[in-house]
């Protein structure tokens, strides 16, 4: 079966080999980047971590002590964000997946959601400043920050929820409707429960995203330092990502506080990636279990 031509099979396979190796190299580079990054974060952060670091407030103009207020602040902001985005996002997704018919309005809504997803985080920050902080007079506060973060993760929640709703087989809906259950009843009792794991995954990913964002809270919620823990939603808070930024770039103690910076970075990354890993785990468990 030999073949005479200027494009011999050997040569064609050689090209393939080269291409495959380049492709593998790309994959390897990306993995190495993540690996190196995580290694650096863990190796440099681990010695700063202690029970005190996590449970005590900073002292001596933030050159010593722990990061507890930043952890608490991030917790509040994230909780607030998801409390706002989840109901809104799921409701939007229900409309888009269950009620909407193809048409101009739906098309516009979809473009709107896509555009919202593409708005730079710093622009969300500006909006939060102009609208919540200044116009609604919420001031720089947990409320303003949580609202801003909530809007930021809204498209993520909508996207994930819509996907989860669409994955529920049409036959489930038809079976319920055929039994005389109303559309809303069907959605509530059949569609939503089946879509729940997917919605949950999306929400958890949204939480991770909200916990790690800095730019949107810079002008809307985050404080350089607070002596006390927040007492109301109108208080400013410290937040982990902002704390990293502040310690690494501002002030006169940048070198002195390196160890605190590394520690904070580790806590932040562990928090965010931990949240993401939970979502990934739920999703893969769900895929394995899925019967339809």
């Amino acid at each position: 079966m030999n073949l005479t031509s200027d494009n011999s099979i050997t040569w064609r396979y050689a090209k393939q080999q080269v291409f495959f190796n380049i492709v593998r190299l790309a994959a390897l580079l990306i993995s190495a980047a993540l690996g190196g990054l995580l290694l650096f974060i863990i190796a440099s952060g681990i010695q700063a971590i202690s029970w005190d670091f996590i449970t005590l407030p900073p002292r001596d103009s933030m050159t010593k002590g722990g990061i507890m207020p930043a952890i608490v602040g991030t917790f509040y902001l994230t909780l607030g964000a998801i409390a706002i985005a989840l109901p809104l996002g799921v409701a939007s997704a229900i409309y888009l997946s269950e009620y909407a018919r193809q048409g101009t309005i739906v098309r516009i809504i979809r473009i709107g959601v896509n555009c919202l997803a593409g708005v730079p985080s710093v622009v969300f920050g500006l909006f939060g400043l102009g609208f919540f902080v200044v116009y609604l007079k919420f001031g720089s506060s947990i409320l303003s920050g949580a609202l801003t973060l909530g809007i930021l993760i809204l498209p993520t929640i909508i996207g994930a929820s819509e996907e989860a709703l669409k994955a529920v087989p049409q036959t489930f809906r038809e079976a319920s409707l055929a039994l005389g259950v109303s559309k809303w009843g069907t959605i509530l009792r059949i569609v939503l429960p089946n879509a729940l794991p997917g919605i949950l995954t999306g929400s958890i990913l949204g939480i991770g995203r909200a916990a790690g964002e800095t730019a949107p809270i810079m002008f809307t919620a985050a404080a350089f330092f607070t002596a006390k823990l927040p007492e109301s939603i109108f208080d400013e808070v410290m937040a982990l990502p902002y704390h990293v930024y502040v310690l690494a770039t501002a002030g006169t103690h940048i070198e002195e506080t390196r160890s605190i910076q590394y520690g904070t970075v580790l806590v932040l990354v562990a928090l965010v990636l931990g949240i993401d890993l939970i979502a990934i785990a739920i999703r893969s468990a769900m895929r394995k279990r899925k019967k339809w």
Partner: protein
Amino acid sequence: MVTTANNIIFELKQVNFFYGSTQALTDISMDFEKNRVTALIGPSGCGKSTLLRLLNRMNDLIDGTRVEGEILFEGRNIYNADNDPVEIRRRIGMVFQKPNPFPKSIFNNITYGPRLTGTRNRADLELLVEQSLKQAVLWDEVKDILNKSAMTLSGGQQQRLCIARALAMKPDVLLMDEPTSALDPISTAKIEDLIEELKKNYTIIIVTHNMQQAARVSEMTGFFYLGRLIEYALTTDIFTNPQVKQTEDYITGRFG
């Protein structure tokens, strides 16, 4: 039927085939003759497509498959390690059940294969396109729109384009898996005429669910059931005087 050894292009010896742990073909031994049309018939799921795809090693592309036995093409086992599937497929063309032109122009669909093996000269390619399209009886319909996307053709035209595309590789064998099942009667008739024409120069193995089609176009027919070759004989014999009860039931529509 009288055959001499050099008339045989494919020789299958006790072939078993597995998708993972499920066996799809059991103990198949059969020969395919050169420049003949052989039809493979049988109920859905009996392994016709699987057998066809064994002949050009398309099943290699599915993970976890396994072949036992020998499949000799011109006397050489195509599953030997030193036989490359890419070269085998170049010599054994395939037409699929659903027309599958590339989302490229008609011209580029046909030149796709020849270009891979090194035909670059524009004049050569143009000649090849014309020849192949004429062979597939599509030339008159598309000669003015060679640069249009193949996706704009009708289903029947697309299928003939796929045949032309396979012919452009100048294969020795053409494997056709239900090539007309997705087509209307007129397109089907055209493709049957085309097969009639092509068998002068090619060995054709065709899978079909259409008994009349098998009777019309083929000289040899093999009947498969549950992964086994039940009966294999001249088409006229199979349809007029089947030796096995199952074959008879199937071709008379009393199956089940």
